[in-house]
């Protein structure tokens, strides 16, 4: 219903805006003038109606010794130690004395890193098995569906979560709506810990994201339905018209929250865009071509918001300097190219060129298989970087899996690196994690051991796989 209304408003264009303005006047007129008795900034409505119920599972105080450590922020310690207790990193150093009651793991020949963060996943929204009844990732019924929330589609029984944990060492992931729409809806950040409910997986305190998309997908999906947008210029026109409405909505609610009076009509899509304008919701913008990214960055400036990260961004390397200047991150693949026209110029040196320019960059999967090997994707990038004469150290490369995606998700204060006080999201690898021959041996989330290659009881099995062929198998 709301979607339909949004579309009508968009189709009506400026008429809709005029209507909104008169609404503002009447709302103001009804309000007691100058009383200053609004509910307060950000308090006009509940911003967290589906709150996280995630809680850390119990863990033992653990000291891993004798390991090569990439701390996720660019630091490295050889033959070092990591101590965590009560779900938090306590200390990371060369040598840590084992206290009483601490489980000590000798990691000789092994590596420790922070758990991998995937900034772009559709697990839960496009779960396995990929049957039509499970296809919940794209509300392809209108080009602007900022009102939908990816978390309302997440199926917590997706078997893919377990593969990402046990093969991939992924401890945190952002679930995004698909890219059929210009504004596809809100994302949600999850802890990669199975729960009975989505809320039980929800990363406590993580900000929401808004998924936006430019380029081929929106214009193809809606152009083929004979409606706007059917071109790239149509994409921008619909985006800008929507932002203008959002700014108007934001003003109305700001005024109401400050001054009181009759509350403006709620609009779920506008709530989300207002959150973006207020810096509370981060924009994750699917975009491939360099020229389009440059236009989107100007649009963001025009409308008063910030793009946190371009996703896929296969041509970011062409404008690495512009991205650096605007402080916009790129979340990229290592080697995808050519599957659609706008991915035609994908190259393996995308991330290295960004990194060399000092632009923020990270790896991402967008794929239930790729999420199991993000460390290997970074290894590909490192090899490309070396061949192109811009070698990077492995400890620096881990920032693309650690602190950089954490920053893009607004959770870098609590995870993304091995620093005292942060969540003990930790992976012990059975070798060099940038080697194809290496796999996670143990994975802890908030200090709880949730995977151990040596313990079949610590292989998560979703409800879907229970009683099926292959239940509890190594995958």
């Amino acid at each position, binding site marked *: 219903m709301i979607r339909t209304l949004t579309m009508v408003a968009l189709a009506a264009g400026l008429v809709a805006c005029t209507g909104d303005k008169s609404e503002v006047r009447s709302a103001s007129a009804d309000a007691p003038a100058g009383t200053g008795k609004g509910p307060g900034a950000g308090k006009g409505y509940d911003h967290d109606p589906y709150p996280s119920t995630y809680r850390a599972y119990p863990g033992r105080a653990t000291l891993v010794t004798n390991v090569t450590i990439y701390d996720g922020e660019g630091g490295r310690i050889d033959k070092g130690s990591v101590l965590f207790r009560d779900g938090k990193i306590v200390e990371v150093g060369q040598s840590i004395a084992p206290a009483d009651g601490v489980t000590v793991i000798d990691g000789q020949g092994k590596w420790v890193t922070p758990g991998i963060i995937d900034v772009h996943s559709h697990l839960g929204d496009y779960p396995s098995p990929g049957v039509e009844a499970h296809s919940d990732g794209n509300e392809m019924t209108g080009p602007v569906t900022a009102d939908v929330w990816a978390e309302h589609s997440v199926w917590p029984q997706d078997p893919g979560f377990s593969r990402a944990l046990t093969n991939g060492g992924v401890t945190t992931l952002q679930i995004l709506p698909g890219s059929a729409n210009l504004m596809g809806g809100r994302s949600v950040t999850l802890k990669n810990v199975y729960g009975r409910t989505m809320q039980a997986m929800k990363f406590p305190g993580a900000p929401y994201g808004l998924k936006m998309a430019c380029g081929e997908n929106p214009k193809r999906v809606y152009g083929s339905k004979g409606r706007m947008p059917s071109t790239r210029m149509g994409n921008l026109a619909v985006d800008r018209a929507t932002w203008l409405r959002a700014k108007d909505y934001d003003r109305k609610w700001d005024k109401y929250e400050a001054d009181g009076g009759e509350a403006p009509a709620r609009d779920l899509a506008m709530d989300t865009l207002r959150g973006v304008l207020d810096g509370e919701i981060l924009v994750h913008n699917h975009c491939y071509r360099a020229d389009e990214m440059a236009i989107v960055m100007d649009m963001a400036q025009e409308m008063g918001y910030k793009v946190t990260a371009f996703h896929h961004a296969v041509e970011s390397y062409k404008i690495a300097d512009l991205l650096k200047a605007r402080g916009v991150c790129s979340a990229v693949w290592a080697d995808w190219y050519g599957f659609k026209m706008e991915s*035609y110029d994908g190259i393996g040196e995308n991330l290295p060129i960004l990194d060399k320019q000092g632009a923020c960059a990270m790896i991402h999967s967008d794929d239930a298989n790729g999420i199991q090997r993000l460390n290997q994707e970074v290894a590909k990038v490192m090899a490309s970087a070396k061949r192109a004469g811009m070698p990077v150290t492995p400890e620096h490369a881990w920032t693309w899996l650690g602190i950089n995606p954490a920053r893009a998700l607004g959770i870098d204060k609590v995870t993304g690196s091995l620093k005292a006080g942060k969540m003990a999201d930790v992976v012990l690898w059975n070798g060099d994690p940038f080697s194809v021959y290496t796999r996670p041996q143990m994975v802890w989330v908030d200090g709880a051991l949730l995977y151990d290659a040596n313990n079949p009881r610590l292989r998560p099995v979703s409800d879907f796989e229970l009683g099926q062929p292959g239940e509890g198998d190594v995958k």
Partner: protein
Amino acid sequence: MKRLILAALLAGSTALPAAAQDVTITNARLVLGDGSAPVEGGTVVIRGGRVVSAGRGGASTGGKTIDAGGRYVTPGIVAGFTRLGIVEVDGVGPTNDASARDSVFNAGLDVTAGLNPRATPIAINRTDGVTRAVVAPDNGGSIFAGQGAVIDLGNDMDAVTRPRAFQFMEWGEAGARAAGGSRPAAMAMFRNALFEAQAYGRNPASFVDRGKEALLTRTDAQALQGVLSGQVPLLIHVERASDILGVLALKREFPGLKPVLVGAAEGWTVAQQIAAAGVPVLASALADLPASFEQLAATQSNIGRMKAAGVTVGIGMIGDDEARQARLVRQYAGNLVALSKIPGAAGLDWGAAFATITSLPARAIGMESEIGTLAAGRRGDVVIWDGDPLEIGSVPTQLFIDGVEQPLTNRQTRLRDRYLVPEEQGLPKAYQR
């Protein structure tokens, strides 16, 4: 245009490339591709486009000598199931010749007619060490997709190693969909097609074409003759264990059939039966999700377990970016080695893993005497690597196909070189080459 390419392919398909060099590569960490471990101090001799000898020691017999400096020297990678060369951009219809949903033909379609040796994925995959590929059409309105080819990835217009090397068929869920909506419908379509093909074979002149008394066209019936006789392997995409057993039963019903399973996610659960039937497999290496109800038992240990049961199993890619990313088979094979360190998993040792992307796919399609190993008489497809070829990021430093040294640049390396410094310098980027 297509007709011209086809004519060129037909005319040139058996001719040796003109520029084949006589080359001796010495001081190699030599990998034969037959499943054996690398040997140090190896020598490969190539003459007239073919391998003359490969092994420890050995001497130059003239021509160019290359000191490999102890680096890996291997047969070129054989990509076991791809759509290389028939697709430029998947999402751009006119450049995608993989399937023909609106054609009245099916089994008779010949993939070589769509092959473009200049498609950018050819050079990109060559740069990563792929020298030969099994190229299969995708199906349209039938379970039969058409006749696939084996190609080389050389920098010339003469790509076809073996045209009409196999027939490809969808079975299981995709076969059911193509046949009208059920597995029984796919079975009926298959049987009917083979009966009609048999009728055609008995008396081609009296065969009544599709739309009159037959469902098949003459073209399709003709193409199935080799399938019936077993001269042409039938590659069958099948995932579920019960469907795999169904294929093995078909082999009993039509004894001439030479089925090769493609995908085979649940193959490990019926590995003994596959091995006993002597049916080879081109398996998806890392599929470990219950991506569909026919892949519930999927695990990365599939290949290792099938091999342990005695199945001939190489790596193929289906539904996995196989028109562009066949190069990923090296990474997949490396991951199979990684599994050998995981309790409960079934991995492969290094030599066995390397064979899954060289000799085993060659054997699966009956071309082991031509490609996939370094042995006397084989095609001169040889790669010198800058590191362990199963390790991520290793690339060829020199690569030969039929004894011809190949360029290792492509559109991506050109883009890279243009944008190593993103800012324009003096003139627009369009002037920088």
